[in-house]
């Protein structure tokens, strides 16, 4: 028996000795989950809260109607003063504004991605309670590396993708994803005297375009 297998057997024996379970079968225990599952805000207030919380953690937020999305993306790219952008193969073609250099990721080399000035992706969900964007790294959200190396991340979030509470995100998962990244603001540290510094190794700038579709979020 290899050392790690011997350790495995020894550890599992010790754990079984102190367990009330029999035969290793797991029966899920039921216990109260009295925390807030479903939010109480209406759609407009939910979107407003998402935007407020994103801004509180130093993300830049723009809002637009669905028909203006391509225009808004182009405006954001232009205002960033950057030239070369990477985007995953699954984003709609009309997002790839003319006048910029686009690298479409499938299996781009790490160095090629490192030399991009920014990245454009979709996302799976937004959680208003904490201003969190959730990526499942689907074809329109891209591989993990493309939303990591470029210094500037532009993320498109549809109002219908915004939930109020974290449990509501879990309710929305059609199946359990294999890869997930929860992003709350640009990268940050408070390791030196608890002073919050924006931008360490991940993107130093997070820009979010909130698409107010089906009239959601247009109250004001």
């Amino acid at each position, binding site marked *: 028996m290899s050392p790690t297998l011997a350790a495995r057997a020894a550890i599992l024996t010790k754990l079984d000795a102190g367990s009330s379970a029999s035969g290793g079968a*797991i029966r899920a225990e039921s*216990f109260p989950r009295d925390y807030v599952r479903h939010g109480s805000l209406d759609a407009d207030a939910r979107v407003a809260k998402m935007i407020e919380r994103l801004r509180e953690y130093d993300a830049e937020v723009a809002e637009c109607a669905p028909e203006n999305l391509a225009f808004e993306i182009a405006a954001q790219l232009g205002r960033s003063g950057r030239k070369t952008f990477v985007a995953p193969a699954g984003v709609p073609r009309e997002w790839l504004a003319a006048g910029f250099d686009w690298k479409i990721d499938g299996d781009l080399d790490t160095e090629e991605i490192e030399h991009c000035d920014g990245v454009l992706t979709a996302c799976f969900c937004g959680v208003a309670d904490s201003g969190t964007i959730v990526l499942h790294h689907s074809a329109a959200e891209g591989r993990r590396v493309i939303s990591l190396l470029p210094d500037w991340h532009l993320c498109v979030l549809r109002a219908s993708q915004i939930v109020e509470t974290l449990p509501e995100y*879990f309710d929305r998962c059609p199946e*359990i994803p294999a890869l997930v990244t*929860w992003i709350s603001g640009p990268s*940050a540290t*408070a390791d030196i005297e608890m002073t919050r510094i924006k931008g360490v190794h991940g993107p130093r700038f997070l820009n979010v375009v909130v698409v107010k579709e089906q009239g959601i979020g247009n109250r004001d």
Partner: protein
Amino acid sequence: MSHAPQPILDPALAPPFPQAALPMLRDPQLRKNVAHATDVIQAKRARLVAEKPDWQALRASASRIRDEALEHLAAYLEQFEARCMERGGVVHWAADAAEARAIILGILREENASEVIKIKTMTSAEIRLNPYLQAAGVKVFETDLAEIILQLGELEPSHIVVPALHVNRSQVREIFARSMGLSDLSDDPQALTAAARHYLRRKFLEIPTAISGANFLIAETGAVAVVESEGNGRMCLTLPRTLITLAGIEKVLPRYSDLEVMLQLLARSATGERMNPYTSLWTGVTPGDGPQRFHVVLLDNGRSAIRAREKERQTLRCIRCGACMNACPVYRQTGGHAYGSVYPGPIGAILTPQLSGMQHAQSLPFASSLCGVCYEVCPVKINIPEILIDLRAQVTNQERGKAARFLDPMYLGMRVANVLFSRSWLFHAAQWMGRIGLGVFTRKDGWIHSLPSIAAKWTQTRDLRGLPQQTFHSWWKQRKQGSR
């Protein structure tokens, strides 16, 4: 920079807490740094906890989820192992620190790795992985900002979430300027952070092997989750060819959806943020995305023994948020180094003696005022004071067995007290004598400032109020007579 000798964070070698705390208490800069950092985190945490009306319900559910995982730990670990391997991961088991170190070095040898990048992991500090790898010729690069400060400054961690909180900006400037060759570096945190980014960028892109810890292992899917702020974690989890994750066996959660509770509690408790900037979750190996070789090392190192003890088992609920140390009136005075372990503060005071065997760290269960604030702030409701008292009893029982204790004045005093307190007439007589005896030492202000012999241990650090002229008993008797 203070030139105090390096603290010893090995429970087998560290001096007892009261002795180890002395140099810390005499270092005003260190105390100022610790007080500032813990004040800032506590204020942020309190504000964010207050905005969650369901905070107590989240705590209750979190403690039940952790208990469920610990109750069926063997089954959940086997489930995690099976799922992780189905997805291309390799799972190793290590009974102790030495086995875990050997497994990790073995993988690095197979990979021909002479360098490795590393995400902050307290578990690796627990098994003293870095010195072991360095001695074996593997160059280790820590990538968390606080860990870089400690590694380049050759300092020891003093907190589990903010390990360099005892170091201030000018000390960081000095360390970075010296080791990165940047003589004109300013002490602005922004500039210091930028220096760290520059120092690490090429290493992230070029070193093909990484080591991480784990915040959570998901039994249901075989996934691993890492919670961080800077993006150094994402770099290490995404760019290398090979990833090795070291995780204590207690880190398992039964289900993916259990994160809906844990992620709401962890960042708020740890850093006073609604959510930390980045949380990554991955399942085995994903073709085309991230490391294509993935190893998990499951470490016991004393955890299964803690689990076997009924009252102490809750120690393993811990999700390493550090809220107990930020709130602890003892930690806030001494900082982390006095605890002689990589796990300081209240959680360290119960975890260290149990992990390292009760023959070590015997002073730690006494390094507490039992005020209970650690229990109050704990997101998974570990009743730390209850465990401290239980560990104190274990230490005392061990000591009681030793023959030499029969002549110990403390032991004799306790025996005498036992006799006095169990007979009321003796107790009243003792009170009467005590009033006369202590009266000699009581000053005009009603306080006793110093006592002789063994009692001096009390008065050397605090005053004692003189006994009142009347006991409660006699006052009650008098009052009853008066009202009749």
